[in-house]
């Protein structure tokens, strides 16, 4: 009897999750009257604005990942190694983006870095791009920090550091050759999550007026019928591909085999 309820709960969950997806996918294939076709996908992929906004967002995502890794890995490493007592405070700070809405962050940015401020980042496209990247890094901070911190927890940071030091390594060598390679799977998990967040992000990009994929999705949704559904399916596919890659990398990472 308990089993029956378990299966029933699972079925309801699966229907709740997959039914809208199936409906949306089916709708995206119905652009041609009376038959299924990939016309909506073709229209989207041939749209130069799609290519521009998508490549812009991919570029910004990569930039955010590089910045995030450079910021989070040394910070999390140092906190674990030298300042374990402040770890709860750092964790709290990294969780703030989950409770502070992006609209608050972006209005803060605009107020602080507008053209009449002491650092007028919004005055140029390059400056605004930089601001957008910082915003993306802030939004992805909870995921990146948590992933890296979990990775660091799985290795003996202190002893590995001391072993490397006794062999003549300095801090940069230790981070680059010992710590980073050993938390690479965790860093990649954080990186893929960051990628998925940046690709679909709307508020920061729209209010900073940057040609990102999120605002393009919204624009299409407001003006077209079938293309937004196709875009949503594409966005889902990208996110799932990211998740799949995290799994693959974890599975094929040689030196972590023993831990699994």
């Amino acid at each position, binding site marked *: 009897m308990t089993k029956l309820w378990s299966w029933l709960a699972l079925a309801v969950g699966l229907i709740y999750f997959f039914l809208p997806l199936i409906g949306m996918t089916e709708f995206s294939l119905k652009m041609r009257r009376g038959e299924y076709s990939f016309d909506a996908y073709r229209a989207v992929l041939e749209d130069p604005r799609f290519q521009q906004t998508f490549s812009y967002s991919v570029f910004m995502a990569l930039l955010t990942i590089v910045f995030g890794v450079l910021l989070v890995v040394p910070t999390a490493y140092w906190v674990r190694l030298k300042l374990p007592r402040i770890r709860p405070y750092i964790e709290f700070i990294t969780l703030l983006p989950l409770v502070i809405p992006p609209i608050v962050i972006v209005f803060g940015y605009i107020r602080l870095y507008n053209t009449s401020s002491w650092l007028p980042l919004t005055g140029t496209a390059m400056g605004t791009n930089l601001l957008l990247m910082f915003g993306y890094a802030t939004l992805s901070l909870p995921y990146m920090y948590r992933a890296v911190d979990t990775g660091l927890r799985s290795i*003996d940071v202190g002893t*590995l550091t*001391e*072993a490397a030091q*006794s062999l*003549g390594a300095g801090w940069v*060598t230790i981070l680059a050759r010992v710590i980073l390679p050993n938390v690479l799977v965790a860093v990649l998990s954080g990186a893929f999550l960051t990628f998925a967040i940046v690709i679909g992000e709307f508020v920061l990009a729209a209010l900073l007026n940057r040609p990102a994929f999120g605002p393009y999705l919204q624009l299409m949704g407001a003006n077209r019928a079938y293309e937004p559904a196709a875009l949503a399916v594409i966005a889902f596919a990208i996110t799932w591909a990211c998740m799949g890659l995290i799994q693959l990398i974890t599975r094929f990472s040689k*030196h972590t085999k*023993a831990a699994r």
Partner: protein
Amino acid sequence: MAFLDIEHLEKSYGTTKVVKDFNLAVDKGEFVSFLGPSGCGKTTTLRMVAGFETPSQGAIHIDGKDMLRLRPNQRNIGMVFQAYALFPNLTVAQNVAFGLKVAGTDKGVIAERVAEMLETIGLPELGNRYPFQLSGGQQQRVALARALAVRPQVLLLDEPLSALDAKIRVSLRGEIRAIQQKLGITTIYVTHDQEEALSMSDRIVVMHQGIADQVGTPFEIYNRPTTRFVANFVGTLTLLEAQVLDPATGRVSIGGVEATLGRRLPKGAVTLAVRPEMVSLGSAPGRETEVTGRIVDVDFLGSVIRLRAQIGQSVLAFDTFNNSHANPPKVGSEVTLSLAARDLLLIGD
């Protein structure tokens, strides 16, 4: 000046002093063990030599060079850890080559040195394995090779065998000592295992509550402990409270039994000690002092049987070899024990 000189070294955490006025001079090529229970300050002292802890006071010189001015990565000191600390992302060969790569050594030289080191530790065929594919003993041998590959001026080992099982521990301690002697490297070895320290070391520093209680060769430490702590910690000793009757000849009364130690003793009450192997069951040539007692405990340890007999107020432990044709005395039986008075040790505080 000795090769490694530690002078008046102290370490405090807040108001707690964990190492107190520690002094030690180690000659080049010497193998010195720090022996003591947990929390006695032996690892802290080792870590100060390595540079991982900053002393509150004192000086450390290696080959005349002040180590406290140098960071850990500038000291050229090899270290082997209890937890192996092999880099999980690197193969055995890459682990051994790590220090050489950091130093910018030529690739050809690195390959040669790695092969030589793997040969030294007896694992020449395992260069391509990852640490997780090795047993604990193999991992610790690789850690030793990695520490030695950079030709350090001093090698530090922090309880390197504690995580291994008994049989591997015994074989590996022989290997470590052989490699150390072959390379002639100055070594400090931290352990709480007295058998390890006694079997491997040129000298032992017995540490207790942050102080070096006694420094001496294994023979001296075992046979002539100078403090009550060393006597109790190293090997098994029976402590006997005695009254000195004649300080000049060393005649004492131990619970009514008189013995002459043949050396000058202080006046009044003294604490004497005797090792179990220095006491014989029954009469024995050269062991002139005889006492009678009642067996209170029998421990069968395999080749040796350890017995305890009540003698007056004291319980005296003694050993006999196992004999498959004769049963050991039973608990409650009366026995005569003999010992040589010269084997009685005078214990200080």
